């Protein structure tokens, strides 16, 4: 079939099962926006290209399918660099199509030209500059394959205007449906080595104080069920990193919650005291390990990861297994069953009672607000958690509010937590929530956002309002870049430098209304519940609820950067407790 490159691009995207595209047109990508009109793919017109990228990420987080964004050249391509880097750090499958100046003009400083593939080389899993219209079907097919297999990640496809412009003879091509990939350097491997899996099983059967240290790889591999089986069969406790909240149910008796800098005391301490860490799809991030040399000093390490470059990167494992988390866990369960299943596990009663002792002495805690004090953000999050369906999808920004959300929410279902972990991108919440809602219109979607973050990407609420994505935003207005304020309070002798945002400017309620949303403002504890109930009722418009919160509240526990996890600082009210 004869067609032009632009038509081929749309057809190739349709063939990959793309149902929604987040984007914004411009000169170089214009020819592709014409066949878009006749395509089955829905396009969501964003208000800033960063929004398109985070929406694609949110969609991928919530559905497991690759998110797709399409933007023009130059400034649009640079606007989407942050989401690419974000997706790269958090292994989010995403395909971004960028327009480029005509092939012959590349390198001439043409209008809106930038070296998109050069700029994005180190923040994508792979990228392409397509030079011939005839390459489009194959490149798109390969791009989706690379984005979604192995360790997932973003792939960028840069398309010069002439090969998609029907008025240019260089766009003429004959359609073909690619049926294979010619990628001799890319052969992702799923299965783990059987002998190593047996060794791992043996270590597990010998361990007296084992902990399952589970990361984003559990969710990426759709391995939550396998993990549940492994944990229940062995009776081993589970910590879920920021990237694996929801990958193991928080209300499960074996769940210790989040480890790391702002993790639960028990999760942090159990890892420190463990004699075996079974790291599954986790990468020993510095926010988890604290001072690496003093991290889990007594523990042997089993490390399972699809990406062999993670094995031994931070901590040398005793058993390193390259493979897909779900596949390896399933094999591990089989190997453990052959060794006697739960019968073969040693008596760990003493370890269990140490864990429950920590849980009793060091639960998450905060002091309720008194008199005419403003709201405690933790209280707001508890109320929100308790008045929304348990499968609500929660997206968050970056800062204190993110840590409180991860701490106080009860994640009992996989794919209900959408956040920016590795890059820590302020402004992620609103566009990511829109993407999640686009992927899961059946679910209630709340974004928990900080006042600082909100001001970075609030314009996408216009997208939500006009394109019909009734997300809800819980805006934690603490008048500060709170996380930075906390560091200045604790580590810079309360010398506050450029962290005060002001309490009343902007007027968030009015701003929300101007953006096409319902705007609510809550100042006292009694108003919290009713406002959430009111927001939950609204299903035809986005809602922003501004919660006016205490400015001085800090996130605890906290392991100060560079310190050992053994020096975790607990809430002031718990500081006299014996450790």
């Amino acid at each position, binding site marked *: 079939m004869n067609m032009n490159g632009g038509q081929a691009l749309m057809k190739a995207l349709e063939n990959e099962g793309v149902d929604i595209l987040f984007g914004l047109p411009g000169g170089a990508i214009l020819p592709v926006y014409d066949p878009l009109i006749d395509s089955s793919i829905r396009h969501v017109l964003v208000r800033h290209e960063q929004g398109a990228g985070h929406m694609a990420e949110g969609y991928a987080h919530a559905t497991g399918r690759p998110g797709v964004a399409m933007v023009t050249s130059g400034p649009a391509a640079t606007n989407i660099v942050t989401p690419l880097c974000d997706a790269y750090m958090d292994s989010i499958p995403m395909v971004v199509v960028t327009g480029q100046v005509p092939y012959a003009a590349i390198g001439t400083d043409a209008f809106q030209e930038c070296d998109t*593939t*050069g700029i994005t*080389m*180190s923040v994508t*899993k*792979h990228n392409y*500059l397509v030079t011939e219209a005839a390459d489009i079907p194959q490149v798109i097919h390969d791009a989706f394959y*690379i984005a979604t297999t192995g360790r997932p990640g973003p792939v960028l496809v840069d398309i010069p205007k002439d090969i998609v412009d029907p008025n240019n003879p260089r766009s003429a091509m004959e359609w073909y449906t690619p049926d294979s990939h010619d*990628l*001799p*350097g*890319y052969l992702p491997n799923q299965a783990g080595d059987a002998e190593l899996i047996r060794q791992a099983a043996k270590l597990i059967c010998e361990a007296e104080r084992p902990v399952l240290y589970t990361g984003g790889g559990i969710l990426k591999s759709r391995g939550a069920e396998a993990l549940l089986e492994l944990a229940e069969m062995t009776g081993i406790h589970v910590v879920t990193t920021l990237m694996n909240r929801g990958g193991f149910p928080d209300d499960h008796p074996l769940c210790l919650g989040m480890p790391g800098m702002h993790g639960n005391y028990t999760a942090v301490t159990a890892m420190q005291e463990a004699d075996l860490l079974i790291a599954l799809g986790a990468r020993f991030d510095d926010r988890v390990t604290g001072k690496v040399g003093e991290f889990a000093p007594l523990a042997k390490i089993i490390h399972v990861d699809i*990406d*062999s*470059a993670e094995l*031994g*990167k931070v901590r040398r494992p005793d058993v390193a297994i390259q493979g897909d988390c779900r596949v390896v866990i399933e094999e591990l369960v089989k190997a453990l069953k052959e060794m006697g299943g739960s019968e073969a596990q040693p008596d760990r009663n003493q370890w269990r009672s140490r864990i429950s002792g920590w849980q009793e002495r060091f639960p998450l805690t905060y002091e309720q607000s008194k008199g005419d004090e403003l709201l405690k953000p933790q209280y707001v999050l508890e109320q929100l958690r308790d008045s929304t369906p348990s499968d609500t999808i929660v997206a968050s920004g970056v800062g204190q509010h993110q840590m409180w959300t991860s701490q106080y929410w009860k994640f009992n279902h996989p794919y209900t937590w959408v956040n920016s972990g590795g890059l820590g991108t302020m402004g992620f919440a609103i566009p990511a929530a829109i993407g999640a809602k686009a992927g899961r219109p059946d679910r209630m979607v709340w974004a928990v956002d900080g006042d600082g973050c909100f001001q970075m990407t609030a314009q996408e609420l216009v997208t939500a309002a006009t394109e019909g994505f009734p997300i809800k935003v819980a805006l934690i207005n603490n008048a500060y870049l709170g996380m930075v304020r906390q560091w200045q309070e604790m580590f810079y002798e309360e010398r506050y430098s450029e962290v005060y945002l002001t309490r009343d400017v902007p007027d968030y309620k009015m701003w929300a209304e101007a953006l096409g949303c319902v705007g609510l403002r809550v100042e006292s504890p009694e108003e919290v519940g009713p406002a959430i109930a009111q927001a939950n009722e609204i299903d035809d418009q986005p809602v922003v609820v501004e919660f006016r919160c205490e400015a001085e509240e800090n996130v605890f526990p906290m392991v100060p950067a560079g310190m050992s996890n053994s020096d975790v600082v607990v809430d002031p009210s718990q500081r006299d407790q014996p450790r």
Partner: protein
Amino acid sequence: MSAADGGGTTTLVVRVENKAGVLARVAGLFARRGFNIESLAVAPTDDERFSRLTIVVGVDAAPMEQVVKQLDKLVNVVDIRELNPSASVERELMMVTVRANPDIRGQILDLVRIFQATVLNVGYDEIMVSLTGSPSRVDDFEDLLRPYGIVDVQRTGKVALPKLVKAAPDPLAP
């Protein structure tokens, strides 16, 4: 870290897809860590889909381990061999123009003979010669020519292949 402050050097032979931009991807992985590439040779292979890069980095094998793994992750990188100098045969080509007034030309030709180098071109007071050999032999030759006055020198950077097995297979082995 560089070879000068105590580290060794590592030689990598990297087979890559013969496509635009691949060299930049490979070089970028070294650059972002501040690892300097000491020499680099790129050439097509017998299979036209691939090229071979021989990269010498002034970094020990240990810090290189992570880079090698990440190099391997590049979609266009097909395979990587790390070559230990003692277990490989290394060659480099040097072309050099040396000042050579007619009265001292004979001394230079002596060196050319001793090293089995080749005279490529002769001028009134200069001579151009080439030498192929192990990098250290090429270093020696260059050092010996230096006092005469090197006008111009070009070295290709080394290429290498693993040494071959010496022992014949045991005829009784199954």
